[in-house]
């Protein structure tokens, strides 16, 4: 994520420039002149947004003076492989457009070294979530083409319509093998995991529990004290979840539901005090561990609809930015939050000012449906430009296509063939 202060006097102009990149409201034209996203084959999703926090007054609930936090321009992308290489690529192939976009940022001059400036403004997320770690844009496209080709093959081969699953499997395998030979389909073998990434991951896998174990006793004491303190704070922390005005909702919803998925961006201030900041940071650190090692195969706890998500602490931990790409409309997304992972949402977001009251960090909170929905809408930011490399494909579609591909690798027994054929 590239994050830079916006020259506040040029915000409207900046937004107009961003809007010029779109084909539909909020949805990028993939080949727009400024940043032709489609040229970047490692890019799953990207967004550009002006972070203009409408909730800066919230700190006054705690008797603190309103603080003029900066308005930022942010560029986010979810990419395969390492970020420095991607940034280099970006700076090379879209230099003039990026210069136009970043020209709205304070202190960005025409003479700026673009790559150096972007690298200097890179901000890393506390927590990243990837629906399926290791699945590249190339995989997604090849597997979607594979699934389409198989469907089409089945449609024009009525003799297979009633055949036993194993026969179908054999016939499709033969068909796909022929298509691959003829070059009409491609299935690139997975690239080897980069050694450095693998090493870092293993160190994290072992290191985090080791660290927790090593400091188990002091940590437990601190955690217990923090929890007791938080429970007492929970009794007095004010809620701030009024319904959002129709105009603001219209401004947000006009950008939504042009595809089967949507971006979500939101920002809010953390509750004052070190306990809340430490809790948020600790929880985000733990969640990051689970998304690296546990929730990396198609679902985040019980939620199947999130492709990528990230949580970023801004302004020395005073504010938290949350950005995600999800399937369906906002109402079903919020429904998942409330009915499937309320505890997880509460753990993180109850450290934010105005969140519906929780008990012991996990109970309550999002379960207060209407307040929670108001809270989310209130903190939501319009995503000015959103790019999706694979419109129309949900995370479940991607998983299905991957399973179809996997099932082609070998002969299957009867039950395996039945399960595989059911995917088609």
């Amino acid at each position, binding site marked *: 994520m590239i994050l830079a202060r916006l020259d506040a006097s040029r915000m409207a102009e900046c937004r107009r420039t961003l809007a010029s990149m779109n084909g539909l409201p909020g949805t990028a034209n993939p080949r727009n002149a400024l940043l032709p996203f489609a040229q970047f084959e490692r890019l799953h999703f990207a967004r550009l947004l002006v972070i203009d926090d409408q909730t800066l007054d919230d700190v006054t609930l705690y008797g603190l003076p309103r603080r003029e936090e900066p308005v930022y321009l942010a560029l986010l992308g979810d990419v395969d492989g390492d970020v420095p290489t991607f940034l280099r690529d970006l700076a090379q192939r879209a230099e003039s457009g990026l210069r136009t976009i970043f020209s709205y940022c304070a202190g960005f001059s025409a003479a700026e070294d673009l790559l150096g400036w972007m690298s200097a403004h890179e901000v890393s997320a506390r927590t990243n979530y990837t629906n399926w770690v290791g699945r590249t844009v190339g995989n997604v496209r090849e597997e979607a083409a594979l699934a389409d080709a198989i469907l089409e093959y089945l449609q024009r081969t009525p003799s297979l319509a009633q055949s036993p699953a194993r026969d179908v499997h054999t016939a499709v395998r033969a068909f796909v093998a022929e298509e691959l030979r003829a070059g009409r389909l491609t299935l690139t073998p997975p690239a080897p995991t980069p050694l450095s990434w693998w090493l870092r991951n293993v160190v994290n896998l072992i290191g985090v529990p080791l660290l927790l174990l090593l400091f188990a006793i002091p940590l437990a004491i601190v955690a217990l004290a923090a929890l007791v303190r938080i429970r007492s704070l929970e009794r007095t922390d004010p809620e701030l979840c009024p*319904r959002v005005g129709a105009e603001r909702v219209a401004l947000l919803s006009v950008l939504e539901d042009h595809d*089967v998925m949507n971006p979500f961006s939101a920002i809010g201030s953390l509750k004052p005090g070190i306990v809340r900041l430490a809790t948020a940071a600790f929880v985000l650190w733990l969640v990051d561990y689970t998304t690296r090692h546990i929730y990396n195969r198609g679902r985040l706890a019980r939620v199947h609809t999130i492709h990528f998500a990230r949580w970023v602490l801004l302004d020395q931990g005073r504010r938290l930015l949350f950005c995600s790409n999800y399937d369906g409309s906002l109402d079903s997304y919020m429904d998942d939050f409330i009915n499937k992972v309320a505890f997880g949402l509460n753990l993180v977001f109850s450290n934010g000012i105005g969140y519906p009251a929780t008990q012991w960090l996990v109970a309550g909170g999002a379960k207060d449906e209407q307040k929670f929905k108001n809270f989310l809408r209130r903190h939501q930011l319009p995503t000015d430009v959103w790019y999706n490399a694979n419109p129309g494909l949900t995370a*479940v579609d991607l998983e299905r296509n991957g399973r179809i591909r996997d099932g082609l690798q070998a002969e299957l027994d009867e039950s395996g063939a039945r399960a595989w054929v059911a995917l088609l």
Partner: protein
Amino acid sequence: MNPVAARSVDFSDVQGLVRFGYVHLTEGCYYLLRVSDAARARSWLRGAPVADAVERKPSPSEAMQIAFTATGLLALGVPPDVVAAFSAEFVGGMSGDESRSRRLGDVGANAPANWRWGGAGAVPHLTVMLFAQPGGLAALEARCTAEWAGAFEILGRLDTSNLGGVEQFGFTDGVSQPALDWNRQRDPAGDQLGYSNVVALGEFLLGYPNEYGKYTERPLLDDTAAAAELAPAEDVPAKRDLGCNGTYVVLRQLRQDVRGFWQFAARHSGGDATQAVTLAANFVGRTQDGAPLVAGGATTIPGIGPKPADIALNGFTFDDDPDGVRCPKGAHVRRSNPRNADLPRPPANVLAQLIATLGLGPHRFGEDLTSSTRFHRLLRRGREYGPGLPAVDALQPAPPDDAERGLQFVCVGANIGRQFEFLQNAWLMSTKFDGLSGESDPLMGNRQPIPGCPVAAGFSMPREGTVQRRFDDLPQFVTVLGGAYFFMPGLRALRYIAGASV
């Protein structure tokens, strides 16, 4: 919530439609009115004989129900800040903005620009629903229209017809309805591990706790003289509850292409009538007489039974048919009510429940993709319109003067966004419901392509042990001709509205 402290429902304050379908009142029509003289309108409303929900023997020979749109409340002089405190969906209106229309699938042929009523400039202020025993409607209508002359301008009159409990495609209508927890015994807190047909009263009436145990947002007024007659809000006793015993009504006029429906089924069945009926049943998810495609007869579902017919027709879930081999996942009744609970499978113990909650347990592909049903139930009160057309006759080409037929869809609920709109968006119109792809509701779908999904006109019928049968050319069978969101007040709230001063 402590059920002991809960007050019991005053049926004399609830409009009858929430409790009754008035099936014995086989004649009915819905007037769509605009206020032309607010003072006369209020005066008529004060005396209007609106039927309440008290059970009477013998049952009444006629009934009137009244509900208002947001613009209607304003036209009658309800203060704007009071109107603004109703739900955002109601205040915005069904056709109020394109983003809502997009979510509802009201695009293409369904777009409000094409509507007969309910679109820009043609939003009714109120609907007066009239029901009567056979032969009685004309007199009731004559009486009402004479009485309200000068008060309202008639924007439209939606006719209904009695097809003996069968909807226009030829299937038994209204088989499954939620059981309202009128006695307020339900405790919805915590995970509900099994499908229940009993739903918290607050899902269908404002002023009571909903399935989250919370009171749905509605206008709570200061205790002034104007509001003195309203009940105190149960959750905020110092305030008067304008919503109490009221609810929202979604009304949509849906034209059904009955000929197109049966001709499609026949075309894809090689002209075999039995196969065509089977295919049509797969679209619906029930046979024409209402029997579910998965085995019914389960007696353990709360709120179903004790009548054997109810158990036979509604004593089922889709738990034993995860792949949709018996009832396609995309079938209309399965989309409209997936009959699931809060967790994908009932856990054996607390530990298993924790593991399931964290999403850590064993997982099969395609499991746990739909939302828990209990937060998304509809209470349907619609009626057919136009003459019926038997399936056999539907195969004939339409005569030049073919009558229009369809459904005056009515559903009642306390949260339009979470109930009607969610169902319409995430379950019926979605081309991605429950892991499906490229297909929307076989009956209701608008078949509009979306970016990346050129095909939205599909339908898949999984078959045991072999490739699913797949269609990719379903025409649009149902077209929206009009619609609006209404607030159906309790009777005390109705008197408040009628007494509202400009």
